């Protein structure tokens, strides 16, 4: 084999070898010492600090993922869906797990179409949020696109499909104000809501029933304990706490009538409320102009929302409950009850066309400049004589008027579910002192008597007050929720909420209802035009609200030539049939010229409701025409 020569191999002297052997021992001891450093460190990590690291490991591995509840749906009284939930698939990216965003976006672009706009929107959001949150790149993925993404997801760490329920309003515009909308939970909401209950929810009711019935609709959040890997991928669900779905709400609204009323108002600005007097249930509530409630949902543009919020027409305002208008002559029947209550019911006054207080120089004019001559209370209602009510107001005094009118709910909220309803104003001496710091003038008493001046009502209040007359004193709370159905299918009926029988002599109702009937059916009634061909008896009252402050000028105004925004508002309130009232309608058309001009809208709505067989299409068209003379 090998020839070995050790001649060139120098060997230590044997005693040096012994010394080297001792070095082996010394080094062994040194190494053992070093090993104990390792052992000590491991003991520290695995025994002393085990609890801490076990918790960190658990944190790494287990994430609590909130499972938002399914929001209750909203239906009309007949079970037609108004606000429902639709599943939306959204493509989201968690930046923390992405190394090269641009190549990832390019890769996604090969799988599903992504527009430049979506990318720039995504990048804007990317700058604002933290690296661990999912940021939506694309909304409304089709199921097919979802499948395509799912197939390639393993190669795209950080990409996820977010499934969300999206609120869809199938009768948007028609029902936007009543049903309302959802909006992003903002800072103010966070202070109000229970954070545990809302875990995982991003939206909260912002308007309409969605807002006021939030508690009924929202349900309660659940959560999953999910094991995730370092890339945020879900491995398995460890435990679940199921969310509780919210209850469904059935409104008292009749969608068919609601749509009809909406169309009947046409392009006018105004509001309409229809109430079933025997229960207080609100059958229709329309506010014009309306808006698309879907604009506030997923995937909509912020610009569209801004337009809505800043529009001069204020489409988000629910004119039916928030719009405050002077009631004009529609206040007269209510004031007429005061005449009976104070024993002045059967008096006649002379109307020369104007009225003057003893020590006042100012003349208060009747709308009919020639005057009504000698006129009693009932004709004064039917023909809307102003002078009669100046006289009555003067004799009652503001304190008595305030007392009597407040029985009908004027100046107070009705208690409808839409808690942001306005209370309106019913003026009194105290009110004026309080708000303006001025004494009450007698002239103000007079104009309060014809529903001008400081008095403000909304259409719900007017319809509510009218339904008290229709009910002969029985006052129900106006009601929008018919019933709720919880997730187990248990129904909770919202029974009519009888507040009181108001303190009015019941013998007053008959004559005054008769007088209101004459408004429509007598040949001198202010709304006589709508009685033509009517198959039932209707009681109503017109009101015309001057916008130009000086009545004299307003009277001389030539409606044909003036800008529409200076036209008076038209108000009409009515119920039918008079002997057994089934529906009350109060309607306002801003700049609608006069109460008689817009009365056909109310008739059309009442016709539609009372006459079970649908009206023929051609007769409908005519009845909406707004007549501009008095």
């Amino acid at each position, binding site marked *: 084999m090998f020839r070995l020569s050790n001649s060139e191999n120098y060997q230590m002297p044997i005693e040096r070898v012994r010394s080297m052997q001792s070095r082996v*021992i010394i080094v062994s001891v040194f190494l053992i010492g070093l090993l104990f450093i390792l052992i000590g460190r491991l003991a520290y990590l695995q025994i002393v600090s*085990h609890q801490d*690291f076990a918790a960190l490991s658990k944190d790494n591995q287990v994430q609590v993922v909130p499972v938002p509840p399914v929001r209750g749906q909203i239906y009309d009284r007949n079970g037609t869906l108004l606000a429902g939930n639709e599943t939306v698939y959204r493509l989201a990216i968690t930046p923390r797990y992405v190394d090269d965003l641009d190549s990832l976006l390019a890769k996604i672009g090969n799988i599903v179409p992504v527009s430049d706009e979506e990318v720039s929107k995504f990048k804007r959001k990317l700058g604002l949020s933290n690296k661990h949150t999912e940021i939506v790149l694309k909304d409304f993925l089709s199921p097919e696109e979802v499948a395509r993404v799912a197939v390639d997801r393993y190669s795209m760490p950080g990409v996820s499909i977010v499934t969300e329920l999206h609120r869809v309003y199938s009768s948007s515009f028609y029902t936007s104000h009543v049903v309302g909308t959802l909006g992003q939970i903002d800072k103010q909401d966070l202070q109000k809501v229970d954070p545990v209950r809302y875990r995982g929810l991003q939206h909260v009711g912002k308007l309409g029933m969605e807002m006021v019935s939030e508690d009924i609709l929202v349900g309660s959040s659940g959560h999953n304990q999910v094991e995730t890997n370092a890339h945020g991928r879900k491995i398995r669900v460890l435990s679940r706490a199921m969310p509780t779905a919210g209850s469904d709400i059935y409104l008292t609204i009749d969608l068919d009538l609601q749509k009809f009323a909406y169309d009947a108002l046409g392009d006018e600005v105004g509001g309409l409320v229809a109430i079933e007097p025997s229960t207080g249930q609100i059958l229709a509530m329309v506010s014009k102009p309306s808006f698309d409630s879907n604009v506030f949902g997923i995937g909509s543009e912020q610009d569209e929302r801004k337009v809505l919020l800043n529009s001069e027409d204020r489409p988000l305002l629910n004119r039916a409950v928030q719009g405050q208008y002077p009631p004009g002559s529609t206040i007269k029947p209510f004031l007429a009850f005061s005449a009976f209550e104070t024993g002045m019911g059967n008096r006649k006054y002379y109307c020369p066309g104007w009225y003057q207080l003893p020590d006042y120089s100012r003349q208060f004019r009747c709308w009919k400049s020639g005057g009504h001559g000698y006129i009693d209370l009932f004709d004064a209602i039917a023909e809307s004589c102003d002078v009669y009510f100046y006289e009555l107001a003067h004799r009652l005094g503001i304190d008595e008027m305030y007392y009597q009118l407040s029985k009908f709910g004027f100046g107070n909220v009705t208690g409808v579910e839409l808690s942001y309803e306005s209370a309106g104003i019913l003026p009194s001496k105290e009110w004026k002192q309080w708000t303006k710091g001025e004494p009450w003038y007698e002239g103000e008493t007079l104009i309060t008597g014809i529903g001008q001046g400081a008095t403000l009502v909304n259409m719900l209040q007017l319809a509510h007050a009218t339904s008290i007359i229709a009910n002969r004193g029985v006052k129900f709370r106006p009601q929008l929720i018919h019933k709720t159905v919880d997730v187990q299918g248990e129904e909770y009926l919202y029974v009519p909420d009888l507040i009181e029988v108001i303190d009015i002599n019941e013998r007053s109702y008959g004559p005054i209802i008769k007088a209101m009937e004459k408004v429509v059916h007598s040949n001198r009634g202010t709304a006589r035009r709508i009685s033509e061909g009517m198959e039932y008896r209707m009681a109503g009252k017109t009101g015309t609200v001057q916008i130009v402050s000086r009545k004299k000028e307003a009277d001389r105004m030539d409606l044909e030539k003036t800008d529409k925004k200076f036209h008076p508002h038209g108000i009409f309130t009515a119920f039918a049939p008079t002997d057994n009232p089934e529906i009350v309608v109060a309607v306002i058309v801003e700049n609608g010229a006069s109460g008689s001009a817009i009365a056909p809208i109310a008739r059309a709505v009442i016709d539609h409701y009372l006459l079970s067989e649908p009206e023929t299409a051609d007769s409908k068209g005519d009845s909406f025409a707004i007549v501009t003379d008095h």
Partner: protein
Amino acid sequence: MIRLQLSLTTSIRRLNGFPVRLDIPLFLLALLLCLLGLAVQFSAGGEDLDQLIRQAVRIVVAVAIMLALSTVPIEVLRRFSPPIYLAAVGLVILVLAIGFTGRGAQRWLDLGGFRFQPSELLKLAIPMMVAYVLTSTFFKNYRNIAFWISGVLVLVPAFLVYLQPDLGTALLIIAVGAAAIFFGGLSWRWVGISSFSVLALIPLIWPFLQDYQKTRVLTLFDPWSDPLGRGYHSIQSMIAIGSGGISGKGWLQGSQSQLDFLPERNTDFVFSVFAEEFGFVGGMILIFIYSLLIARCLMIAYRCDYDFARIVVCSVAIMTFVHLFVNVGMVAGILPVVGLPLPLISYGGTSMVTVLAGLGLVMGAQYAKRTV
């Protein structure tokens, strides 16, 4: 010729007529570590059987190399030390040159299918070369010159490896070389002087470190300053080890490794996987096995009266120990993350071959006899 010897712990078998010298304790301990390595690889690799088979093949190849080396008489190896050393240094320069000519920094040569790291070869070539110089009759009367030359022979290739850049291996080479010089008989006075110089040099070396190397050292002192960036590896590793507790989470049950939180869990951080799944008890058993392996090497060295063999055996023992100490120290967060594998357990062939070849030298060395 070589005298054949049979004792309780050593035996000579004949394989196809070729004598195989086998140190049974060393062989069994190494095999045990390799098997443990396979078990933990299976867990760390996501139960990938192909990967496991590849590693098993590497073990077989490396064991064959070990057995082959054990048959080569240590005297022969001594005479081949200079060419081996020169070849290793040449290959390191070649790798560096390839790196400089635009292929980007790399540490390995691609030899048609498998990658070979010349710096690994240095781990054995350097102690052999140092031992060769220190036992050369040429320097019989110039002992001091022999030590100075040894120092240069260690530091030059270490510097080349550092340029690759591979700080971990460079430091390991220095440690192994220093061990060879120490066991070659450097006087205690010079041991003291050089130890002191090294300590004094540390602040001087600092500015020459690459930025990423500085970061690694700084991160060691406060990994939580950047838990998702520079401190991430270190923190996840400590979480894995710490959450293992005393008895561990069980084989294949380590959430840190199974759920991808641990980086490099097949290679540099394989100990974290082991410690997470087998706990403190498992870690102690593993360290105990290593201790036995190293102790067996040192025992052979102690008995050995042939200078070259003793120096090489001690160096192999120190090499194994430094690998173990640095690797465990780095995954446990007391040493910077420098990228030294855990001997016989980390995935990869080159390190496996180095360690088992080293053990082959050890096995062969115990038959060497003092001839003068």
